């Protein structure tokens, strides 16, 4: 389906906005698996996830004229998907995931070292799948976006609409929480 790999998402959006609506298939192919995988971290029912992804694609298409092509399309569609999955989770759990968030009240320093990040990513990926459900929803979503979806703090900040420093703090808290969870299970974080 993706026969125009050289085109960026944003260039494809420009074509769609210009009237070449058929190109939307390319974007859907690019994001279908990613969004489904992302949804699995929120919801357990595969059927429900696929329905939501479909709704996300429909909503993104209808609102694509509202997308500013100077920004990243991935952040935009993840934002739509995030809201849809959080709503799905709320319906499923009947509990609020979002609310007053003290982390967003103050400023936090951020630092991303590529070498440390790469090694960190590998270790975390292995651990995350096993301990994810025990994390708080706020920590869980940033850990998923950063370690499983490979998004930067800045992109996560745009998706969740929270300061970059808050993303960094939640990643740190999520990692600490996972360490504790694995310590309890007698598993080594470095393994």
């Amino acid at each position, binding site marked *: 389906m993706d026969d125009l790999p050289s085109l960026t998402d944003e260039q494809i959006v420009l074509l*769609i906005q210009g009237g070449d609506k058929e190109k939307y298939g390319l974007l859907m*192919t690019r994001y279908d698996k990613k969004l489904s995988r992302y949804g699995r971290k929120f919801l357990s029912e595969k059927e*429900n996830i*696929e329905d939501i992804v*479909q709704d996300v694609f429909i909503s993104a298409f209808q609102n694509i004229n*509202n997308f500013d092509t100077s920004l990243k399309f991935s952040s935009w569609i993840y934002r739509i998907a995030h809201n849809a999955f959080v709503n799905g989770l709320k319906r499923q759990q009947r509990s609020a995931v979002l609310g007053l*968030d003290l982390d*967003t009240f103050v400023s936090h320093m951020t630092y991303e070292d590529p070498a440390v990040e790469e090694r960190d990513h590998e270790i975390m990926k292995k651990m995350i799948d096993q301990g994810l459900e025990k994390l708080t929803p706020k920590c869980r979503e940033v850990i998923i976006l950063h370690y499983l979806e490979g998004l930067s703090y800045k992109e996560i900040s745009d998706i969740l609409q929270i*300061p970059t420093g808050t993303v960094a703090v939640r990643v740190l808290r999520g990692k600490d929480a996972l360490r504790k969870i694995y310590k309890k299970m007698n598993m080594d974080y470095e393994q």
Partner: protein
Amino acid sequence: MNNKQPIPQDKIQNILEKIRKNELTLTPKTYFRLRFAAFILVVVAVLVVSVFLSSFILFTIRASGQASLIGFGPAGWQVFLFLFPWGLSTLEIGLIILLQYLLRSFKFGYKVPVLYLLGGVIFVMSVSGFVIDKTPLHDMLLRQADQKHLPPPFGNLYENARRLPPPGHGIFLGTITSIEGDTLVIALLNPMDTSTTTAVTVMVPSGQIIVQEKVGDRIFIQGKMIDGKIQAQDIKNANDLPPPPSIPGGM
């Protein structure tokens, strides 16, 4: 939502099919532009109302002479807290929270911590309120309200801006009509009806210098009303207050 799980490729094909049949259409750019313009209008409206309200709160504090009441000590503080426009201040806090919430829809809004944004909004409101209060705007509108030229709700808002110390708290506001030694006669404003006054004698405490006070000056008096006379403990000049509507020059 569907009950049947769509196969990924089917899902994409289904959506493409709907697009081809025009069952799924792009929302026009004009709609988003108009929606954004409406949103900006709401933000600006909230901002303007909020700035106006913050300056009006400062004006009511000035118009009631609340700042000078603090100088009377605990009794003055009591009256200050009584006269403080709590209702308007609560409304202002609500508007600030709403504005902060609206600003978080913008990229610059969610990129900064909530406390910084809230602090920034409060700072802008306070400074702009202070600056507007220094202009003749509110005094002019007050005169309009006194002449019943201001439509509601502004008319009512300004008519209630000048609040007198409540009875029973030992603080009075009046205009000096005569001075004889350590005795003053003042036209005491009636707290229930500011268009009427009562002539009251004020016994100035020994040692209180009243040479700077003259007939026509407006003063706050702290003291006790005994047999229709006020035994003053302290007197403060209140000439900075906007004149009451009944007093010539106040119109």
